[in-house]
């Protein structure tokens, strides 16, 4: 296939990295503790401006109508009263010329740029940007209003008179598959969402029936994950302004460049006439990715249309209730069948998953990427229900980690084996054991270290595993509660994809600018970029900065999907810094008589001759006249010291990257106390051990580990969107009734980074940002099982389920 060939060409040229990136520089800033966080002062002082803070002269405020019904159609809509309300400047109706019959892109990028064969979950069913039908409560439809204030816009929405045709709805994905279930999506004849790639629906490796025949023990169980979502601090918003034929957008979005592509396609406006700014972001967690902003939701387009219609800037706003318009993509009901030998060697895993609304991960991937299990089978169905769109939520691997943890902990419990031993017994990749991984590491320049064993040993020691581990339901504490202990593991997945570009420029005073748009996502990535550039150039961290908000300079960092941040962008800034260094030294050589550039080096911002270090000049002395622009008659100029580069990391769009096994592992441990009279579960201790390959910014690594833990515990213990079975209306669309954990809900958290150098990222690094919040939630069930001796496989694990498992409710 042509596109695949293109990837192979990139791989051949070294753009697609499979070899270890062995460090060739001395680390001064990289890995250093105590570095001042680049965005710290602005954020901590309250000076940071977020998208929702943006104010423009003459700006109007826009609000969209949301469906009050779980499934309904507009029979008639009268906007006369709303239009007459003083302060209302424009209303766009579903039947208006601006939007009639216009669909959202339905694609992660843009349909015209997506190869259906490789698109995978990038292509979704399409629906109108502003339709007359809703199939979940809270779905935008009908009308959008621009007015002088939010209050007036809200009042105008209330004045719209609508005659609804209320239709039957369905909330459960298995119910939605039944023949008599109401079909939700207009024009569809089934709730089963057609998947563009049939291979995702059914994945088979080896022969599961043979695997079951070889097993000493076979178990079967059901599990379910109920809906949860992003629930970030900053609510969705967008600001739009037209300048003649050009459009400016201030977006609350984690992939602004791809948002620009989508807007361009929808408005049929050249990308060169669109400016997109992504200021500080009060949250994302995937919820501010393209799907939520552009594929599922027309808010950016509607703001642009209203702005064009009124000739004024428009800020379109969502409120907290409206932000509950979608869920994490692991709304799933799953059946598992697992076979294993007595010693813990798993011989076969078979799973059948039914996902609600839409999802991009099938549940089996981590068994393939991460184990030696030879026989695997996965069947996945995706079904529309009367709930908002499901997408990634830090991150799309949730179904994979959910299935992975539950299978391993269930089978270890069934065999009465230590789960850490079962993990080590099955570690590997693509059906091959750890011996293959060792060989791969040696052949590709990686250290031959056993990442999983190192993580497990560090974690066991930290939590006191050998002293505390006990059979299920056997340890009652002095306070009357039951004690539980559990372990799970996984590999690290955030070092294998992404693409972007950036430049490094030496300013005329010798300081360094990274030129590259980058959304405010991840913990502190900009600091890490500056650390890399500093060490590659030979300058101090404080001499490097990045101004990441402006997209118009043409360089866009960040991966297309949002998962791979440092491991992709780190290469970009590293390569750009190296190119800039080369230009700088060539320029400097002209100023040292009779010296070749190769004879020069840079340290602490001083360029010197290696053989005679007393011959030295500051970078400023060398570049003072290397002007990036020719706008001063007082200067004679030299070529500016600026270098740009790009990098693509891995085969994005491929569910599996054959031939590139994941090498870094992670191990997680949890202690709980269960009150068997009330069903209350308290997580009293969490130990996270993540092989991050190389910690560029150690504080950032730990920050991600803490942040992931509180989010994981909220997901495991309490986060659940609840819909009224009678009306289909969501009952807890607020942060009082939808329970997000805070750090106060966590007991002690131990964060242990392992630095094995086994990552595919720069200097052997790999990611950590998505791991813990994604892997740890499913660990609660095994911990509760170890406490009370009963499995609870429906998440979140709330007191009602505990009491029911104990026969007390």
């Amino acid at each position: 296939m042509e596109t695949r060939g293109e990837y192979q060409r990139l791989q051949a040229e070294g753009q697609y990295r499979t070899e270890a990136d062995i460090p060739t520089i001395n680390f001064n800033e990289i890995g250093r503790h105590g570095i001042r966080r680049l965005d710290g002062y602005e954020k901590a002082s309250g000076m940071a401006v977020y998208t929702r803070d943006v104010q423009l002269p003459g700006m109007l405020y826009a609000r969209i109508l949301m469906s009050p019904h779980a499934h309904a159609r507009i029979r008639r809509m009268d906007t006369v009263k709303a239009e007459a309300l003083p302060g209302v400047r424009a209303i766009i109706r579903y039947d208006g010329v601006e939007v009639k019959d216009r669909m959202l892109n339905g694609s992660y990028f843009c349909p015209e740029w997506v190869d259906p064969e490789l698109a995978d979950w990038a292509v979704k069913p399409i629906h109108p940007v502003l339709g007359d039908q809703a199939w979940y409560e809270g779905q935008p439809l009908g009308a959008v209003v621009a007015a002088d204030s939010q209050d007036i816009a809200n009042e105008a929405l209330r004045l719209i008179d609508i005659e609804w045709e209320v239709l039957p709805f369905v909330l459960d994905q298995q119910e939605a598959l039944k023949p008599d279930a109401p079909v939700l999506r207009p024009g569809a004849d089934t709730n089963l969402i057609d998947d563009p790639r049939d291979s995702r629906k059914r994945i088979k490796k080896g022969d599961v029936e043979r695997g079951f025949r070889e097993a000493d023990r076979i178990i079967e169980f059901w599990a379910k994950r109920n809906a949860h979502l992003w629930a970030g601090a900053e609510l969705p918003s967008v600001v739009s302004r037209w300048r003649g034929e050009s459009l400016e957008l201030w977006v609350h979005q984690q992939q602004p460049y791809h948002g620009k592509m989508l807007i361009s396609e929808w408005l049929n406006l050249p990308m060169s006439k669109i400016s997109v700014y992504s200021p500080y972001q009060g949250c994302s967690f995937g919820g501010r990715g393209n799907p939520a902003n552009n594929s599922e939701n027309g808010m950016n387009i509607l703001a642009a249309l209203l702005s064009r219609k009124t000739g004024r800037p428009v800020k379109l706003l969502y409120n907290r209730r409206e932000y509950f318009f979608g869920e994490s993509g692991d709304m799933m009901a799953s059946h598992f069948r697992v076979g294993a030998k007595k010693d813990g060697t798993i011989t076969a895993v078979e799973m059948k998953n039914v996902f609600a609304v839409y999802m991009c991960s099938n549940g089996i991937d981590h068994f393939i990427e991460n184990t030696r299990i030879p026989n695997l089978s996965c069947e996945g169905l995706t079904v529309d229900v009367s709930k908002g769109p499901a997408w990634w939520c830090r991150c799309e691997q949730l179904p994979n980690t959910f299935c992975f943890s539950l299978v391993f902990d269930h089978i270890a419990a069934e065999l009465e084996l230590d789960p850490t031993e079962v993990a080590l017994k099955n570690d590997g990749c693509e059906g091959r054991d750890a011996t293959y991984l060792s060989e791969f590491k040696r052949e590709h320049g990686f250290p031959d270290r056993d990442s999983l064993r190192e993580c497990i040993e560090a974690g066991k020691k930290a939590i006191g595993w050998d002293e505390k581990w006990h059979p299920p339901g056997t340890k009652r504490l002095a306070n009357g509660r039951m004690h539980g202990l559990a372990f799970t593991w996984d590999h690290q997945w955030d070092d294998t994809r992404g693409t972007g570009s950036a430049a490094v420029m030496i300013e005329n005073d010798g300081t360094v600018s990274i030129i590259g748009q980058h959304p405010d996502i991840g913990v502190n990535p900009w600091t890490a970029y500056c650390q890399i550039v500093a060490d590659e150039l030979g300058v101090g961290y404080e001499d490097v900065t990045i101004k990441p908000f402006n997209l118009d300079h043409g360089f866009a960092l960040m991966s297309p999907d949002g998962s791979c941040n440092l491991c992709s962008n780190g290469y970009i800034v590293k390569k750009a810094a190296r190119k800039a260094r080369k230009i700088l030294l060539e320029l400097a050589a002209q100023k040292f008589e009779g010296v070749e550039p190769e004879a020069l080096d840079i340290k602490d911002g001083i360029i010197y001759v290696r053989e005679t270090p007393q011959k030295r000049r500051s970078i400023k002395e060398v570049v003072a006249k290397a002007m990036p622009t020719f706008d001063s008659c007082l200067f004679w100029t030299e070529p500016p010291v600026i270098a740009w580069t790009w990098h693509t990391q891995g085969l994005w769009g491929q569910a599996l990257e054959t031939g590139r096994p994941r090498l870094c592992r992670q191990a997680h441990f949890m202690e709980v106390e269960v009150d068997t009279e009330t069903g209350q579960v308290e997580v009293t201790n969490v130990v996270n051990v993540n092989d991050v390959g190389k910690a560029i910014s150690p504080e950032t690594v730990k920050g991600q580990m803490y942040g992931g833990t509180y989010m994981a515990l909220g997901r495991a213990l309490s986060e659940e969107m609840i819909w009224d079975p009678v009306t289909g209306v969501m009952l807890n669309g607020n942060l009082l009734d939808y329970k997000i954990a805070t750090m106060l809900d966590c007991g002690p958290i131990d964060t242990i980074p392992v630095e094995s150098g086994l990552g595919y990222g720069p200097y052997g690094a790999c990611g950590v940002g998505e791991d813990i919040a994604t892997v740890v939630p499913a660990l609660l069930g095994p911990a509760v099982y170890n406490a009370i001796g009963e499995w609870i496989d429906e998440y979140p694990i709330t007191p009602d389920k505990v009491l029911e498992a104990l026969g007390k409710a």
Partner: protein
Amino acid sequence: MRKFSHINSSTINEAVLLLRRYGGEARVIAGGTEYVKPYRGIKAEKAIIGKGIDQSTAGAAGDAAVSDAKPLPYNNYMVQIARTMMKRAVLACT
């Protein structure tokens, strides 16, 4: 900010007050069991009046407090929680 718990006075709103635990008199009040009005557990009171407070009588008070509870389809578990909270609140008064 306080730690979130499914089971505490802010979520279950169980507030048990032994108002005058002298002269053999007691008042057992539970909030949150109806929409507005606190529930007075007369049966629970009887379970402890004149008998002192220990594990046995506190347990009896908990049982008595929910003996005529009528849970709805999705909140049956709250009866068990109310029983426990009542028992513990009584025990906390010793």
